[in-house]
Protein backbone atom coordinates (compact mmCIF):
# COMPACT_ATOMS: atom_id res chain seq x y z
CA UNK A 1 0.00 0.00 0.00
CA UNK A 2 2.93 2.30 0.68
CA UNK A 3 3.56 2.15 -3.06
CA UNK A 4 0.37 4.07 -3.74
CA UNK A 5 0.66 6.36 -0.75
CA UNK A 6 4.15 7.24 -1.97
CA UNK A 7 2.73 8.23 -5.32
CA UNK A 8 -0.02 10.32 -3.80
CA UNK A 9 2.32 11.94 -1.30
CA UNK A 10 4.74 12.71 -4.11
CA UNK A 11 2.08 14.26 -6.32
CA UNK A 12 0.79 16.29 -3.39
CA UNK A 13 4.20 17.80 -2.66
CA UNK A 14 4.73 18.56 -6.32
CA UNK A 15 1.40 20.36 -6.50
CA UNK A 16 2.26 22.33 -3.34
CA UNK A 17 5.41 23.53 -5.03
CA UNK A 18 3.52 24.41 -8.19
CA UNK A 19 1.07 26.42 -6.14
CA UNK A 20 3.90 28.59 -4.81
CA UNK A 21 5.33 29.36 -8.22
CA UNK A 22 1.84 29.66 -9.69
CA UNK A 23 0.96 32.32 -7.15
CA UNK A 24 4.00 34.33 -8.15
CA UNK A 25 3.16 33.86 -11.82
CA UNK A 26 -0.27 35.38 -11.30
CA UNK A 27 1.17 38.28 -9.32
CA UNK A 28 4.09 38.75 -11.68
CA UNK A 29 2.95 42.20 -12.74
CA UNK A 30 3.52 43.85 -9.40
CA UNK A 31 6.00 41.41 -7.94
CA UNK A 32 8.85 41.91 -10.39
CA UNK A 33 12.07 42.76 -8.58
CA UNK A 34 13.99 43.65 -11.72
CA UNK A 35 15.64 47.04 -11.74
CA UNK A 36 15.58 48.40 -15.29
CA UNK A 37 18.88 50.04 -14.67
CA UNK A 38 19.84 52.53 -17.32
CA UNK A 39 16.20 53.56 -17.70
CA UNK A 40 15.64 54.27 -14.05
CA UNK A 41 18.59 56.58 -13.63
CA UNK A 42 16.21 59.42 -12.95
CA UNK A 43 14.64 57.84 -9.90
CA UNK A 44 17.63 55.82 -8.76
CA UNK A 45 18.91 57.29 -5.55
CA UNK A 46 21.74 55.90 -3.53
CA UNK A 47 21.71 55.85 0.23
CA UNK A 48 23.43 58.73 2.00
CA UNK A 49 26.23 56.57 3.27
CA UNK A 50 26.76 54.76 -0.02
CA UNK A 51 30.43 54.35 -0.76
CA UNK A 52 30.86 55.20 -4.40
CA UNK A 53 34.09 57.15 -4.49
CA UNK A 54 36.04 59.53 -2.34
CA UNK A 55 35.34 63.17 -3.05
CA UNK A 56 36.56 66.41 -1.59
CA UNK A 57 33.75 68.93 -1.26
CA UNK A 58 34.55 72.52 -2.12
CA UNK A 59 32.43 75.47 -1.09
CA UNK A 60 31.39 78.38 -3.30
CA UNK A 61 34.68 80.19 -2.70
CA UNK A 62 36.54 77.19 -4.11
CA UNK A 63 37.81 76.30 -0.69
CA UNK A 64 38.28 72.89 0.85
CA UNK A 65 39.16 71.68 4.31
CA UNK A 66 42.23 69.58 3.60
CA UNK A 67 45.25 70.60 5.62
CA UNK A 68 47.53 68.06 4.00
CA UNK A 69 48.15 66.17 7.23
CA UNK A 70 48.47 62.90 5.26
CA UNK A 71 46.63 60.85 7.86
CA UNK A 72 44.45 59.42 5.11
CA UNK A 73 47.49 58.47 3.10
CA UNK A 74 48.88 56.53 6.05
CA UNK A 75 45.56 54.92 6.85
CA UNK A 76 44.96 53.72 3.32
CA UNK A 77 45.79 50.02 2.97
CA UNK A 78 46.34 50.13 -0.78
CA UNK A 79 48.20 53.31 -1.53
CA UNK A 80 45.11 54.78 -3.10
CA UNK A 81 45.75 58.29 -1.84
CA UNK A 82 48.85 60.28 -2.59
CA UNK A 83 49.17 63.80 -1.29
CA UNK A 84 51.63 66.06 -3.01
CA UNK A 85 52.18 68.91 -0.62
CA UNK A 86 54.03 72.11 -0.48
CA UNK A 87 54.91 74.80 2.00
CA UNK A 88 53.23 78.08 1.39
CA UNK A 89 52.84 81.35 3.15
CA UNK A 90 49.78 81.62 5.31
CA UNK A 91 48.13 84.97 4.63
CA UNK A 92 46.61 85.34 8.07
CA UNK A 93 49.66 84.73 10.18
CA UNK A 94 52.39 85.25 7.65
CA UNK A 95 54.02 81.98 8.71
CA UNK A 96 55.05 79.14 6.43
CA UNK A 97 52.48 76.41 6.47
CA UNK A 98 51.96 72.99 4.90
CA UNK A 99 49.34 72.97 2.19
CA UNK A 100 48.27 70.51 -0.44
CA UNK A 101 49.31 70.89 -3.99
CA UNK A 102 47.52 67.87 -5.36
CA UNK A 103 45.34 65.31 -3.62
CA UNK A 104 45.72 62.33 -5.94
CA UNK A 105 43.15 59.58 -5.65
CA UNK A 106 43.54 56.33 -7.57
CA UNK A 107 40.02 55.00 -7.84
CA UNK A 108 41.30 51.86 -9.51
CA UNK A 109 43.15 50.89 -6.34
CA UNK A 110 40.44 51.86 -3.91
CA UNK A 111 38.65 49.10 -1.99
CA UNK A 112 36.10 51.47 -0.45
CA UNK A 113 37.10 50.53 3.08
CA UNK A 114 36.46 54.03 4.40
CA UNK A 115 39.51 54.26 6.64
CA UNK A 116 40.69 57.53 5.08
CA UNK A 117 37.38 59.26 5.70
CA UNK A 118 37.30 57.79 9.18
CA UNK A 119 40.66 59.27 10.17
CA UNK A 120 40.30 62.66 8.48
CA UNK A 121 40.44 65.20 11.32
CA UNK A 122 38.84 68.03 9.33
CA UNK A 123 36.26 66.05 7.35
CA UNK A 124 37.85 67.28 4.17
CA UNK A 125 37.03 64.13 2.22
CA UNK A 126 33.79 62.22 2.18
CA UNK A 127 31.90 59.61 0.24
CA UNK A 128 30.40 60.48 -3.13
CA UNK A 129 27.34 58.64 -4.38
CA UNK A 130 28.50 58.22 -7.95
CA UNK A 131 28.74 54.58 -8.88
CA UNK A 132 29.07 54.73 -12.63
CA UNK A 133 32.79 54.61 -12.77
CA UNK A 134 33.50 52.85 -16.03
CA UNK A 135 35.85 54.73 -18.29
CA UNK A 136 37.58 53.99 -21.56
CA UNK A 137 41.03 54.82 -20.32
CA UNK A 138 42.53 53.59 -17.10
CA UNK A 139 44.29 56.85 -16.46
CA UNK A 140 40.89 58.52 -16.08
CA UNK A 141 40.55 56.65 -12.81
CA UNK A 142 43.39 58.60 -11.29
CA UNK A 143 41.88 61.81 -10.09
CA UNK A 144 43.01 64.98 -8.43
CA UNK A 145 40.40 65.74 -5.83
CA UNK A 146 41.23 69.35 -5.04
CA UNK A 147 40.05 71.71 -7.73
CA UNK A 148 42.57 73.94 -9.47
CA UNK A 149 43.39 77.10 -7.55
CA UNK A 150 41.42 75.93 -4.56
CA UNK A 151 42.74 76.76 -1.17
CA UNK A 152 42.12 75.75 2.37
CA UNK A 153 39.12 77.22 4.10
CA UNK A 154 40.21 79.74 6.71
CA UNK A 155 39.81 78.52 10.23
CA UNK A 156 40.52 74.88 9.44
CA UNK A 157 43.45 73.73 11.50
CA UNK A 158 44.86 70.33 12.14
Amino acid sequence: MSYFSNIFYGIKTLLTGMRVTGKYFLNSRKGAITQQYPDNRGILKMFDRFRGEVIMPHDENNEHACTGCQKCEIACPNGTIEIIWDRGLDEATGKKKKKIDQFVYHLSLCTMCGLCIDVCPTDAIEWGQNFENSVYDRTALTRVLNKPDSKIRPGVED
Partner: protein
Amino acid sequence: MQETTTINNNFKSEEYFINMGPQHPATHGVLRLLLTIDGEIIKKVEPDLGYIHRSIEKMCERDSYQQIVHLTDRMDYLSSHINNEAVCLTVENALQLEIPERVKVVRTIIGELTRIASHCLWWGVMGMDVGALTTYFYGFRDREMINDIFEETCGARLTMNYNVPGGLMWDIHPNFVNRVKAFVKHFKTKIPEYDRLLTGNVIFQKRTKGVGVLSKEDAISFGASGPVGRGSGYSCDVRKYHPYSALDKVTFKESLQTAGDTFARYQVRIQEMWQSLSIVEQLIDNIPEGEHRVKTNAVIKLPKGEFYQKVETARGELGVYVISTGTKNPYRLKFRSPGFSNLSLLNHIAVGGKIGDLVATMATLDLVIPDIDR
Protein backbone atom coordinates in the same frame (compact mmCIF):
# COMPACT_ATOMS: atom_id res chain seq x y z
CA MET B 1 44.80 14.73 -18.05
CA GLN B 2 45.76 11.19 -17.26
CA GLU B 3 43.89 8.10 -18.23
CA THR B 4 43.85 5.01 -16.10
CA THR B 5 42.34 1.63 -16.58
CA THR B 6 41.84 -0.72 -13.71
CA ILE B 7 40.66 -4.25 -13.92
CA ASN B 8 38.69 -5.59 -10.98
CA ASN B 9 37.05 -8.97 -10.57
CA ASN B 10 37.60 -9.83 -14.21
CA PHE B 11 35.27 -7.03 -15.21
CA LYS B 12 36.95 -4.38 -17.21
CA SER B 13 36.07 -1.16 -15.59
CA GLU B 14 37.28 2.04 -17.13
CA GLU B 15 37.81 4.91 -14.84
CA TYR B 16 38.35 8.30 -16.26
CA PHE B 17 39.17 11.74 -15.06
CA ILE B 18 37.10 14.78 -15.57
CA ASN B 19 37.86 18.29 -14.59
CA MET B 20 35.04 19.91 -12.74
CA GLY B 21 35.90 23.53 -12.73
CA PRO B 22 37.47 26.03 -12.42
CA GLN B 23 34.64 27.43 -14.51
CA HIS B 24 31.95 24.99 -13.61
CA PRO B 25 28.53 26.23 -12.56
CA ALA B 26 28.30 24.02 -9.50
CA THR B 27 31.64 24.89 -7.99
CA HIS B 28 30.42 28.41 -7.09
CA GLY B 29 33.60 30.15 -7.94
CA VAL B 30 36.97 29.07 -9.09
CA LEU B 31 37.31 25.73 -7.43
CA ARG B 32 38.64 22.92 -9.54
CA LEU B 33 37.78 19.36 -8.68
CA LEU B 34 39.64 16.49 -10.26
CA LEU B 35 37.10 13.72 -10.41
CA THR B 36 37.90 10.09 -10.97
CA ILE B 37 34.73 8.60 -12.30
CA ASP B 38 33.55 5.17 -13.24
CA GLY B 39 30.56 5.75 -15.46
CA GLU B 40 28.54 8.06 -13.27
CA ILE B 41 29.98 6.92 -9.97
CA ILE B 42 32.54 9.06 -8.23
CA LYS B 43 35.66 7.21 -7.20
CA LYS B 44 37.79 10.07 -6.01
CA VAL B 45 37.49 13.80 -5.62
CA GLU B 46 40.61 15.86 -5.41
CA PRO B 47 40.23 19.60 -5.01
CA ASP B 48 42.74 21.84 -6.70
CA LEU B 49 42.87 25.20 -5.00
CA GLY B 50 44.63 28.47 -5.31
CA TYR B 51 43.00 30.05 -8.33
CA ILE B 52 42.22 33.20 -6.38
CA HIS B 53 44.67 32.94 -3.54
CA ARG B 54 45.75 36.42 -2.51
CA SER B 55 47.79 35.50 0.53
CA ILE B 56 45.79 37.66 2.87
CA GLU B 57 47.78 36.24 5.78
CA LYS B 58 50.99 37.65 4.31
CA MET B 59 49.32 40.97 3.59
CA CYS B 60 48.18 41.13 7.20
CA GLU B 61 51.76 40.91 8.36
CA ARG B 62 52.48 44.29 6.82
CA ASP B 63 49.17 46.02 7.56
CA SER B 64 48.07 47.79 10.68
CA TYR B 65 45.25 46.28 12.70
CA GLN B 66 42.69 48.71 11.32
CA GLN B 67 43.67 47.82 7.81
CA ILE B 68 43.43 44.09 8.37
CA VAL B 69 39.71 44.39 8.99
CA HIS B 70 38.85 45.29 5.43
CA LEU B 71 40.87 42.39 4.08
CA THR B 72 38.64 39.95 5.90
CA ASP B 73 35.68 41.23 3.89
CA ARG B 74 37.30 39.58 0.95
CA MET B 75 37.59 36.18 2.53
CA ASP B 76 34.14 34.82 3.10
CA TYR B 77 32.31 37.66 1.44
CA LEU B 78 28.92 36.30 2.42
CA SER B 79 29.63 36.74 6.09
CA SER B 80 31.88 39.74 5.79
CA HIS B 81 30.50 41.44 8.87
CA ILE B 82 31.21 38.43 11.05
CA ASN B 83 34.74 38.19 9.69
CA ASN B 84 35.32 41.86 10.52
CA GLU B 85 33.91 41.24 13.95
CA ALA B 86 36.35 38.39 14.52
CA VAL B 87 39.38 40.57 13.88
CA CYS B 88 37.96 43.44 15.91
CA LEU B 89 37.18 41.16 18.83
CA THR B 90 40.71 39.79 18.74
CA VAL B 91 42.17 43.26 18.88
CA GLU B 92 39.73 44.45 21.54
CA ASN B 93 40.35 41.43 23.73
CA ALA B 94 44.07 41.83 23.38
CA LEU B 95 43.88 45.50 24.33
CA GLN B 96 41.28 44.68 26.99
CA LEU B 97 39.04 47.42 25.71
CA GLU B 98 35.63 47.81 27.28
CA ILE B 99 33.18 47.82 24.40
CA PRO B 100 29.86 49.65 24.84
CA GLU B 101 26.76 47.51 25.04
CA ARG B 102 25.28 49.30 22.05
CA VAL B 103 28.13 48.18 19.85
CA LYS B 104 27.79 44.60 20.99
CA VAL B 105 24.06 44.52 20.30
CA VAL B 106 24.33 46.16 16.90
CA ARG B 107 27.16 43.85 15.93
CA THR B 108 25.11 40.85 16.89
CA ILE B 109 22.03 42.03 15.00
CA ILE B 110 24.00 42.73 11.85
CA GLY B 111 25.88 39.48 12.29
CA GLU B 112 22.67 37.49 12.43
CA LEU B 113 21.26 39.38 9.47
CA THR B 114 24.43 38.50 7.61
CA ARG B 115 23.83 34.89 8.46
CA ILE B 116 20.29 35.06 7.15
CA ALA B 117 21.47 36.78 3.98
CA SER B 118 24.11 34.15 3.47
CA HIS B 119 21.64 31.35 4.02
CA CYS B 120 19.18 32.98 1.62
CA LEU B 121 21.79 32.93 -1.08
CA TRP B 122 22.75 29.41 -0.17
CA TRP B 123 19.12 28.31 -0.36
CA GLY B 124 18.73 29.81 -3.79
CA VAL B 125 21.91 28.21 -5.02
CA MET B 126 21.07 24.90 -3.40
CA GLY B 127 17.84 24.82 -5.37
CA MET B 128 19.67 25.74 -8.50
CA ASP B 129 22.25 23.03 -8.01
CA VAL B 130 19.59 20.38 -7.77
CA GLY B 131 17.84 21.86 -10.79
CA ALA B 132 15.11 24.15 -9.46
CA LEU B 133 16.18 27.45 -10.90
CA THR B 134 13.37 29.53 -9.51
CA THR B 135 14.58 29.26 -5.93
CA TYR B 136 17.56 31.38 -6.83
CA PHE B 137 15.43 34.42 -7.47
CA TYR B 138 13.26 33.96 -4.42
CA GLY B 139 16.35 33.64 -2.26
CA PHE B 140 17.87 36.73 -3.78
CA ARG B 141 14.72 38.77 -3.37
CA ASP B 142 14.88 38.32 0.39
CA ARG B 143 18.60 38.82 0.47
CA GLU B 144 18.23 42.13 -1.31
CA MET B 145 16.16 43.46 1.57
CA ILE B 146 18.97 42.71 4.00
CA ASN B 147 21.51 44.17 1.64
CA ASP B 148 19.48 47.37 1.50
CA ILE B 149 19.55 47.55 5.28
CA PHE B 150 23.30 47.12 5.20
CA GLU B 151 23.76 49.66 2.48
CA GLU B 152 21.82 52.26 4.37
CA THR B 153 23.76 51.74 7.57
CA CYS B 154 27.21 50.71 6.39
CA GLY B 155 27.38 52.13 2.90
CA ALA B 156 28.18 48.87 1.19
CA ARG B 157 26.19 45.79 0.39
CA LEU B 158 28.78 43.07 0.47
CA THR B 159 32.18 44.18 1.71
CA MET B 160 30.81 46.24 4.53
CA ASN B 161 33.82 47.00 6.73
CA TYR B 162 31.48 48.42 9.34
CA ASN B 163 33.51 47.24 12.31
CA VAL B 164 36.59 49.01 13.49
CA PRO B 165 38.68 47.97 16.48
CA GLY B 166 36.84 49.68 19.29
CA GLY B 167 33.34 49.70 17.89
CA LEU B 168 31.50 50.62 14.75
CA MET B 169 32.52 53.02 12.05
CA TRP B 170 29.28 55.00 12.30
CA ASP B 171 26.23 54.80 14.46
CA ILE B 172 23.30 52.90 12.98
CA HIS B 173 21.10 54.74 10.55
CA PRO B 174 17.83 56.13 12.00
CA ASN B 175 15.85 53.88 9.67
CA PHE B 176 17.73 50.77 10.73
CA VAL B 177 15.33 49.53 13.39
CA ASN B 178 12.23 49.99 11.29
CA ARG B 179 13.74 48.35 8.28
CA VAL B 180 14.93 45.37 10.27
CA LYS B 181 11.48 44.97 11.81
CA ALA B 182 9.89 45.12 8.39
CA PHE B 183 12.31 42.52 7.15
CA VAL B 184 11.66 40.18 10.06
CA LYS B 185 7.94 40.44 9.42
CA HIS B 186 8.42 39.82 5.71
CA PHE B 187 10.83 36.95 6.10
CA LYS B 188 8.64 35.09 8.55
CA THR B 189 6.17 34.53 5.76
CA LYS B 190 8.89 33.52 3.31
CA ILE B 191 10.59 30.65 5.12
CA PRO B 192 7.38 28.58 5.10
CA GLU B 193 7.25 29.30 1.40
CA TYR B 194 10.79 28.01 1.01
CA ASP B 195 9.62 24.85 2.74
CA ARG B 196 6.62 24.44 0.48
CA LEU B 197 8.58 25.05 -2.67
CA LEU B 198 11.69 23.02 -2.03
CA THR B 199 11.95 21.27 1.33
CA GLY B 200 8.77 19.28 0.97
CA ASN B 201 9.26 18.49 -2.68
CA VAL B 202 9.47 14.76 -3.20
CA ILE B 203 12.15 15.04 -5.85
CA PHE B 204 14.26 17.24 -3.63
CA GLN B 205 13.93 14.85 -0.73
CA LYS B 206 14.90 11.92 -2.91
CA ARG B 207 17.87 13.86 -4.17
CA THR B 208 19.16 14.77 -0.73
CA LYS B 209 18.18 12.09 1.77
CA GLY B 210 20.91 9.56 2.40
CA VAL B 211 23.30 11.42 0.14
CA GLY B 212 26.74 12.48 1.32
CA VAL B 213 26.45 10.99 4.78
CA LEU B 214 28.95 12.24 7.32
CA SER B 215 29.10 10.53 10.69
CA LYS B 216 29.57 12.49 13.88
CA GLU B 217 33.03 11.02 14.52
CA ASP B 218 34.17 11.93 11.06
CA ALA B 219 32.70 15.40 11.38
CA ILE B 220 34.81 16.04 14.46
CA SER B 221 37.89 14.41 13.00
CA PHE B 222 37.61 16.42 9.81
CA GLY B 223 37.15 19.60 11.79
CA ALA B 224 33.74 20.22 10.32
CA SER B 225 31.99 23.19 11.79
CA GLY B 226 28.89 25.21 11.29
CA PRO B 227 25.86 23.60 9.66
CA VAL B 228 28.01 20.83 8.22
CA GLY B 229 29.01 19.65 11.67
CA ARG B 230 25.59 20.24 13.18
CA GLY B 231 23.93 18.25 10.43
CA SER B 232 25.88 15.27 11.74
CA GLY B 233 24.74 15.80 15.30
CA TYR B 234 27.99 17.40 16.37
CA SER B 235 27.15 20.31 18.60
CA CYS B 236 29.68 22.89 17.55
CA ASP B 237 28.00 26.28 17.64
CA VAL B 238 30.62 28.79 18.73
CA ARG B 239 27.78 31.13 19.67
CA LYS B 240 26.80 28.62 22.35
CA TYR B 241 30.19 27.50 23.61
CA HIS B 242 32.21 30.66 23.36
CA PRO B 243 29.60 33.43 23.13
CA TYR B 244 30.88 36.75 21.93
CA SER B 245 29.33 40.22 21.59
CA ALA B 246 25.73 40.15 22.79
CA LEU B 247 25.14 36.49 22.10
CA ASP B 248 25.30 35.61 25.80
CA LYS B 249 22.21 37.75 26.38
CA VAL B 250 19.91 36.04 23.93
CA THR B 251 18.28 32.68 24.01
CA PHE B 252 18.35 30.54 20.95
CA LYS B 253 18.43 26.90 20.11
CA GLU B 254 21.32 25.29 18.39
CA SER B 255 19.80 23.52 15.42
CA LEU B 256 20.98 19.95 15.39
CA GLN B 257 20.18 17.09 13.07
CA THR B 258 21.51 13.59 13.49
CA ALA B 259 21.18 12.09 10.03
CA GLY B 260 24.37 13.66 8.70
CA ASP B 261 23.18 13.61 5.11
CA THR B 262 22.61 16.42 2.69
CA PHE B 263 19.02 16.87 3.77
CA ALA B 264 20.06 17.18 7.42
CA ARG B 265 22.51 19.94 6.58
CA TYR B 266 19.79 21.61 4.55
CA GLN B 267 17.39 21.51 7.46
CA VAL B 268 19.99 22.84 9.88
CA ARG B 269 20.35 25.92 7.75
CA ILE B 270 16.62 26.43 7.41
CA GLN B 271 16.28 26.19 11.19
CA GLU B 272 19.20 28.53 11.64
CA MET B 273 17.34 31.16 9.70
CA TRP B 274 14.48 30.86 12.19
CA GLN B 275 16.90 31.05 15.11
CA SER B 276 18.69 34.05 13.67
CA LEU B 277 15.36 35.78 13.17
CA SER B 278 14.51 35.13 16.79
CA ILE B 279 17.87 36.56 17.94
CA VAL B 280 17.28 39.67 15.86
CA GLU B 281 13.80 40.00 17.30
CA GLN B 282 15.06 39.73 20.85
CA LEU B 283 17.63 42.46 20.34
CA ILE B 284 16.08 44.91 17.93
CA ASP B 285 13.66 46.45 20.41
CA ASN B 286 16.21 47.16 23.08
CA ILE B 287 19.35 48.47 21.49
CA PRO B 288 20.92 50.28 24.44
CA GLU B 289 21.80 53.92 24.09
CA GLY B 290 25.42 54.88 24.24
CA GLU B 291 28.56 55.43 22.31
CA HIS B 292 29.05 53.61 19.04
CA ARG B 293 32.77 53.59 19.42
CA VAL B 294 35.52 53.78 21.98
CA LYS B 295 38.52 55.82 21.18
CA THR B 296 41.61 53.81 20.38
CA ASN B 297 45.09 54.98 19.65
CA ALA B 298 45.68 55.94 16.07
CA VAL B 299 48.39 53.31 15.97
CA ILE B 300 47.19 50.15 17.63
CA LYS B 301 49.92 48.05 19.15
CA LEU B 302 48.90 44.73 20.55
CA PRO B 303 50.74 43.51 23.64
CA LYS B 304 53.25 40.76 23.15
CA GLY B 305 51.59 37.38 23.10
CA GLU B 306 49.20 35.18 21.24
CA PHE B 307 45.50 35.76 20.79
CA TYR B 308 42.86 33.51 19.42
CA GLN B 309 39.27 34.43 18.71
CA LYS B 310 36.57 32.13 17.41
CA VAL B 311 33.36 33.31 15.84
CA GLU B 312 30.57 31.49 14.10
CA THR B 313 30.21 32.67 10.55
CA ALA B 314 27.45 31.46 8.29
CA ARG B 315 29.75 28.65 7.21
CA GLY B 316 31.13 27.61 10.55
CA GLU B 317 33.91 28.38 12.89
CA LEU B 318 36.26 31.16 11.88
CA GLY B 319 39.36 31.42 13.99
CA VAL B 320 41.72 34.36 14.06
CA TYR B 321 45.10 33.52 15.49
CA VAL B 322 47.34 36.50 16.06
CA ILE B 323 50.91 36.29 17.22
CA SER B 324 52.04 39.70 18.29
CA THR B 325 55.49 40.90 19.16
CA GLY B 326 54.22 44.20 20.45
CA THR B 327 54.58 46.12 17.22
CA LYS B 328 51.89 47.75 15.13
CA ASN B 329 51.72 44.80 12.78
CA PRO B 330 50.96 41.23 13.69
CA TYR B 331 53.95 38.93 13.54
CA ARG B 332 51.80 36.17 12.17
CA LEU B 333 48.09 36.12 11.56
CA LYS B 334 46.34 32.93 10.68
CA PHE B 335 42.74 32.60 9.67
CA ARG B 336 41.22 29.25 10.40
CA SER B 337 38.54 29.36 7.78
CA PRO B 338 35.50 27.11 8.00
CA GLY B 339 35.33 26.41 4.29
CA PHE B 340 38.82 24.97 4.19
CA SER B 341 38.07 22.28 6.75
CA ASN B 342 34.66 21.63 5.27
CA LEU B 343 36.15 21.16 1.83
CA SER B 344 38.62 18.61 3.11
CA LEU B 345 35.82 16.18 3.87
CA LEU B 346 34.33 16.38 0.39
CA ASN B 347 36.29 13.40 -0.88
CA HIS B 348 35.20 11.37 2.12
CA ILE B 349 31.47 11.90 1.64
CA ALA B 350 31.20 12.17 -2.12
CA VAL B 351 32.88 8.90 -3.06
CA GLY B 352 30.40 6.28 -4.15
CA GLY B 353 27.79 8.79 -5.16
CA LYS B 354 26.83 9.98 -8.59
CA ILE B 355 27.77 13.24 -10.22
CA GLY B 356 24.39 14.63 -9.25
CA ASP B 357 25.01 13.65 -5.64
CA LEU B 358 28.34 15.39 -5.65
CA VAL B 359 26.69 18.59 -6.79
CA ALA B 360 24.01 18.36 -4.13
CA THR B 361 26.59 17.56 -1.46
CA MET B 362 28.77 20.46 -2.45
CA ALA B 363 25.79 22.75 -2.32
CA THR B 364 25.19 21.89 1.33
CA LEU B 365 28.84 22.26 2.22
CA ASP B 366 28.19 25.84 1.10
CA LEU B 367 31.70 26.57 -0.03
CA VAL B 368 32.80 30.09 -0.65
CA ILE B 369 36.04 29.84 -2.54
CA PRO B 370 37.73 33.08 -1.38
CA ASP B 371 37.26 31.73 2.12
CA ILE B 372 39.29 28.66 1.17
CA ASP B 373 41.80 30.51 -1.00
CA ARG B 374 42.50 33.21 1.51
